[in-house]
Structures are given as structure tokens and as C-alpha cells.
């Protein structure tokens, strides 16, 4: 099983970043290539821009540790665990770590690469929004 890790620093507080990450239905707004995400309890089904449908199982959605974990259960993948963790990086900044553990290894690169790209898009979106008032005052 291969591990692909991507991380990025975003100039927003962990609370602000977690608002996007912790909402499993919101992934289609910040993950390029995911066009819809339907959530039903611990199940999520995403549809990609290429028309592929991938069922997922939400394993962890912990707002205290700010950790979100999910498994893609589509047949093309033998085993998968996606893990997103948001931690403070000082000065109202956050470190977001997105790990992809996957078999086959090749698919880990493909999914991990897309996750890395998604982190850049998440940063672009969050940093282009006005800083929330509370954080500005702080």
C-alpha cells in the first residue's frame, strides 16, 4: 500500500479551514474534479467530472481534533484511506495535511495528486475571502 502525503499552509485559522473540511457535502466546492457529493449518514457518493461515481465511507469526522477520514469503496480500489488533518501553524495560519493510503500504488499517486491540487484550490478560495471579523479583531 502506497502513501502519498500533501500538505499546505493556509493563512486562515484552523476553525475557518475546518468549516470547509468538516462538511463532507462541501467537498465538491473545493476539490477540482468532484462535481457532486451526496452524503447520507456515514456514506458519501462523489461523482467526478469524468462521470465516474465513487462510493465512500466516512470513517472519522472529529471537529475537536479536526481530523476527517474516509475510505473509497469503489471496486477499482483494493484498499484506501484518505485522511485530512488541520492544525494550527501560528499567526492565524493553519497547516492542512492530506494523506492518501491506497492500493494499488498507482492509484495512490492519482488520488494523492488530485488531493494536493485540491489543497491549493482550498487555499486559493479561503485566502481570497475576507478575513472573518472575529479573527481580524483577534
Amino acid at each position: 500500500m502506497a502513501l502519498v502525503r500533501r500538505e499546505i499552509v493556509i493563512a486562515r485559522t484552523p476553525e475557518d479551514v475546518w468549516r470547509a473540511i468538516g462538511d463532507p457535502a462541501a467537498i465538491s466546492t473545493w476539490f477540482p474534479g468532484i462535481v457532486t457529493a451526496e452524503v447520507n449518514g456515514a456514506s458519501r457518493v462523489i461523482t467526478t467530472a469524468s462521470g465516474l461515481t465513487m462510493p465512500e465511507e466516512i470513517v472519522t469526522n472529529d471537529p475537536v481534533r479536526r481530523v476527517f477520514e474516509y475510505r473509497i469503496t469503489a471496486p477499482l480500489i483494493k484498499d484506501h484511506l484518505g485522511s485530512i488533518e488541520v492544525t494550527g501553524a501560528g499567526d492565524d495560519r493553519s497547516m492542512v495535511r492530506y494523506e492518501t493510503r491506497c492500493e494499488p500504488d498507482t492509484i495512490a499517486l492519482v488520488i494523492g495528486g488530485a488531493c494536493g491540487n485540491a489543497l491549493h484550490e482550498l487555499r486559493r478560495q479561503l485566502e481570497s475571502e475576507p478575513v472573518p471579523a472575529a479573527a481580524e479583531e483577534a
Partner: protein
Amino acid sequence: MGRKILFITTDQQRYDTLRCNGGTVARTPVADGLAAAGIRYERAVPQSVVCMPSRSTILTGQHPTTHGVWMNGVPLPVDAPSVAALLQRHGYRTALVGKAHFEPYLDPFGRFTENSLARLGAETVEQPWADGSTGPHRGFEHLEFATHGTAAPLHYTMWLWQNNPSAIGMYYPVLDPAYNVNGAGGGATGAPQVHDNPIPREQYHTDWVADRTIGWLNSLAAGDDWFCWMSFPDPHHPWDPPKSELSRVDWRDVPLPAGYPASRAEREAILDAKPRHWRMWYDGTLVSNYEAPKTWVPATLTDDQVREVNARNAVEVELIDEAVGRVLRAIEARGWAGDVDVIFTTDHGELQGDFGLLFKGPYHVDALMRLPLIWRPAPSAAVTPDVVTRPVGLVDLAPTFSAIAGIEPAGWMQGRVLPVSDADAGRRGFDSVLTEWDSDLFGVDVHLRTITRDGWVCTAYRPGYVHDGSEGELYNLTDDPLQQFSRWSDPACAAIRSDLVADLWDSQPPARAEALELQAPV
């Protein structure tokens, strides 16, 4: 009305596969004719020996370190500089037909334009450009894509679905069930990536690329100036040309290549004298390039397999030559023949049996680094045919296209307009050319920097998975044209080595400000 440009690329084609370059297997009268009427380059060198970085160099006129596409799977940003955009802005009609590969193929999320355009049914899409404006994708107002076979959802695949869906499964499956590059063998010898393909010749991707190129050219007005990049996916593996064409070259009659040492002991002794990753790949203990099938061990390669691979490759080269001839006749029929510059080259070479190896990887030798390059200037330009022996690079193509169009090469281009003779090359200082390799595949990283100068090829290694950074290779191209015996550690060559290494590091191009991430294996 200015000069028009037909830019022809193949994929992974060796220098010595053309008759005009000394080839003896494939018949290439069209390429030979272009060479006789134009400039033939005997030392054209890519800036990378894999597709995406090399093709990005062609488009941007920059070295990989600068454009940032450091290995296959790293997409060229859509707003990267593009010579096609420059030409389009100056009124040229622009098209790319065939294999692009500026963006990864393995793309289940459908994130990349190259993989989504056929589905969208659009000729191109509007994108940001390097100068802050917007325009057609990478400067091409017309795009129709094809690659090796039918695995990717490109225009050629869609066309086959509509015209002969049963042909979709006739191609060699490029990936195995674990999504690795397939190592399965076929043909008469069981050679890897060799396959009997029953597809009708007229539906094979080579002819499709020529047909679609002719279709686009015929859509233009007589007075249009145009730049057309016709990009054949062959003779890159898999070696699965139409079965109907195999009788052109009987593999049993194909001589073993000069670079394929006759005995196993000799092959292994040559590999043992090179940096470690050569022998480790041969033994199947280290794979550093995704496109080298993980399950195939080069040490198992037989003489007959080398013959059959070379035979199939030659068939593919002949089909390309004939397709080019068809396009040239179509251009003539439009009355443009006197005003069209034709440039023929490839993105990088193929080991094709040299050293007992196939495919490609971090191996900076002629098999991968000496490319066919022919520039047949428009007859109206009245350029005297010649042969250039001094080193030139694919990085020089973008400024050459600009010059043909009468446009000052852009400041972001790092090459120069190709010389038309050795005297011209000497006057303008065409002395050296750089090549680089960086890869990091599942923790196996390899980093090479190479300079070709004064009849030498000198490669210095940076630290990586199996290298400590002290390794290198040094070949005298005159004494050792097959690059079998490195002089890196030869005290008699210490001075030239030191001079070349100093020049190599002094000449490194500026690095892109923000490193680009690997997003897929290929």
C-alpha cells in the same frame, strides 16, 4: 501572407530509425526527401528523455527546470508560456492534432483539459495565458487528441467508438489490472509490449492523425497563415501496428542493433561499469520510471525479442512516413507547397535493445538523447540544404517557429533560432546543450544533469535513492559512439571532465519560482 509551419513530431523515435540518418530497417523516403531539401541535424538533443517534460520544452522554449515539468505526471500549468499562443496572437491559425501530453493521462477526476475536450465536443477552451490575457488552450484554436491505443477518453477513442467500436479492444492494453504499465509479451517472441493488432490500417491512430490534420488544413482559407503541430503517438511502445502491415519487415531478418552487445557477459560487464541504477534495472531490482513495466526484467530479453521489437518499430516508422507524405500532398493540393516550412522531430529516443534494455529511463546516452531533426524551410525562403553537426536542442524549436513567422522570439524562450549550417552554428555559438532528469517514484528518486559539448557527453549525478552524488558518466562520442565505456574515472580525462562539469553547473537554467507537484504517474 507569411510562411506556414507544419511541425511534425513522433514519440520516442531513435535517430537511427531514418534512412537519411543511417537507418537500415525502415524505409523513410518522405523524411529522407525533406532532409535532402532542407537541414538535417546530426546532434539534436532533448532537454528531457521523457514525454511531458520534453513536450513542455518544445511548447515553452524553456528547460524543464524553468517550466517546472520535472517528470511525467507533473502537468504543465495552463498559463505557461506557449509559442502557439505567440503565433496565434500574431494572426496565425493554430492546431495540435495527435498526442499532446502536457497533462497526465491517468485522470479519473477529469481535471485536465486534454482528457475532457473530446467529451465537451469543443475545438478548444478559453484559458489564462502567461501574459495575463486569455485565449485558446495553450494557444491552439483547434485540438484533436490521440495517444497509444484507446485507454484515454480522447478524440481518437471517441472516433473509434463511433466508427468501429470493436476496434477499441484490438489494441494492446497499456495498463495491467494493478494499473501499472503492462509487461505482458506477445508476437512471435513474447517480447514485452509487442502485440498483434487486427485493426484495419486506415483506422490506426497514425492514419487518423494524418486524416484529421488534412481535415483541419482543408478548413482554412487559402490566405491563412497557420501553425499545425501534427503529433504521432508512434513509434512509442506498445509495438502494436496493424497486423496487415507486419509483412513489411520480417523480424527474423532484422539485424541486432550495434548497441546491443552480442553476449550476456559483455552486456553485463558494460552495465556493471556504469552507475548502479543501470544494472539494478537490468536485474529488475530497481524501477525508476513508471513507463518501464514493473513486472518485466530486462535481463530476460532475448536476441529474437530485440529483433521483433525493432521490426515492429520499423513498421510504425514506415506508416508515419507514408502518413507525412499524404499530408504533404494535401498541402501541395492547396497550393501552399512553396510557403510551408516543415520541421520533423520527436520528443526523445528509445533504448530498443541498446545495453540489453528497452523503453527509457534515467540513462543519458544516444539511444534516448540523439534525435532525428529535420528542418525543410519553405522553398520560397531559398535556404541552401545542409547538414548541421553541432549540438542543438528541442529548446531551440520555439524561437525557430517565431523566426519563421517573422516574430521576434519572446524573452521567456531560452533557446535560439536553429542554425542552417555548421558555419552559422559556429558563428552563433552553438557549442553545447543541456539535458536533465528528475524523478521520484514511490520514494525512488534519481537526478541527472548532462551537458553535450565538444564531442563529449558528460552526466553528473545529484544524490538520490541509490546515488550519493559523486557518480557521473563521461563518453567520448567519437571514440565510443555507443557510449559503452565511461571515462568519468579515467585520470587521462580528468581535465576535460572537470571543465565539462564546471560548464554544466555554470550553465544551469533558472528554476521555476514554485515547484510543481507530481499529480499522476504519467
